[in-house]
């Protein structure tokens, strides 16, 4: 059953990804990419990363792809759909990708850890593979005992890990990176506003354009429009 869903999600994801780069129409590409993201969220669910699956759909498939679609529709890209393809260049690109995949296949075949299945996992999700590292200490750093930690769901665990403040036993804390991320988003927001700001040259206001191009509206009509 698991295998069936794995092949369904990964197959759908790869077909959609191929459609993204092969489609001439940018809007169709964006939609295919959204579907690819949704399939990847399915893979995240299979890897029991439920929180990330939700975030993936909300942020990437929701916010980011809406932004992409906005920009695609804002810019006029219809002229680009008729640019002829360069067959030789496409062949070179395919060779590049196949070379990359060959290297990855070699590495995967040489890694014994990669043949681990879900059944060979340790009983507890967060228990270390090596028993030398005490798993209790790991969860104790998060302010809960091991038994409580096992009971917690995915979102709670990530939250505990993200905001853990007790780093006395060498545990990494993600509080500082989290705060820095907020700074990054602030900088990005300001940067976007600066980049998209129109230059300071005086431009005709909307009102002026209307009055210049359209015949002036009679005063009584104008007051009627205002109300």
């Amino acid at each position, binding site marked *: 059953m698991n295998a069936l869903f*794995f092949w369904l999600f990964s197959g759908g*994801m790869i077909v959609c*990804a191929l459609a*993204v*780069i092969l489609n001439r129409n*940018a809007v169709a590409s*964006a939609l295919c*990419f959204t579907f690819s993201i949704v399939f*990847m969220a399915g*893979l*995240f669910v*299979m*890897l029991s*990363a439920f*929180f*990330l699956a939700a*975030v993936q759909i909300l*942020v*990437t498939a929701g*916010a*980011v792809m809406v*932004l*992409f679609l906005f*920009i695609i529709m804002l*810019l006029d*890209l219809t002229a*680009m759909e008729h*640019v002829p393809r360069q067959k030789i*260049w*496409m062949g070179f*690109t*395919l060779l590049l*990708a196949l070379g*990359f*995949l060959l290297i*990855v*296949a070699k590495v995967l075949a040489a*890694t014994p*850890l990669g*043949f*681990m*299945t*879900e*059944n060979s*996992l340790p009983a*507890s*999700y*967060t228990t270390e593979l090596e028993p030398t590292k005490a798993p209790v200490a790991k969860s104790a750093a998060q302010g809960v005992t091991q038994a409580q930690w096992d009971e917690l769901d995915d979102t709670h665990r*990530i939250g505990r*890990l*993200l905001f853990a403040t007790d780093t006395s036993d060498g545990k990494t804390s*993600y509080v500082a*990176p989290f705060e820095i*991320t907020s700074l*990054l*988003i602030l900088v*990005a927001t300001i*940067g976007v506003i600066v*980049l*998209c700001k129109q230059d300071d040259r005086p431009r005709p206001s909307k009102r002026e354009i209307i009055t210049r191009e359209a015949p002036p509206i009679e005063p009584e009509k104008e007051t009627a429009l205002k109300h």
Partner: protein
Amino acid sequence: MEITLNHYLAVAAVLFAIGLMGVVMRRNLLIIYMSLEMMLQAANLTFVAFSRFNGYLDGQVFVFFVITVAAAEVAVGLALIVALYRLKRTTTTQDLTTLKF
């Protein structure tokens, strides 16, 4: 058939390769940008797969950060593309040769 860690890594590698192909092959800036996003997503998938099979949750926290940074990056990148379009009236890489030697 049992699904192993290698299956997930192979799928992520294929997705990364498709993204790479898109970046090198396409001439539309927006599609190139989408392919870049796709490569980031492939990296995310490997993070989550390793996190699951190694029993550490830290990988998932990393993916959380990657998604956040990617969202900010998309906003800035698209603003750059819009600014470029205002200046040049095109988003084809062939027409953007100002820096060409």
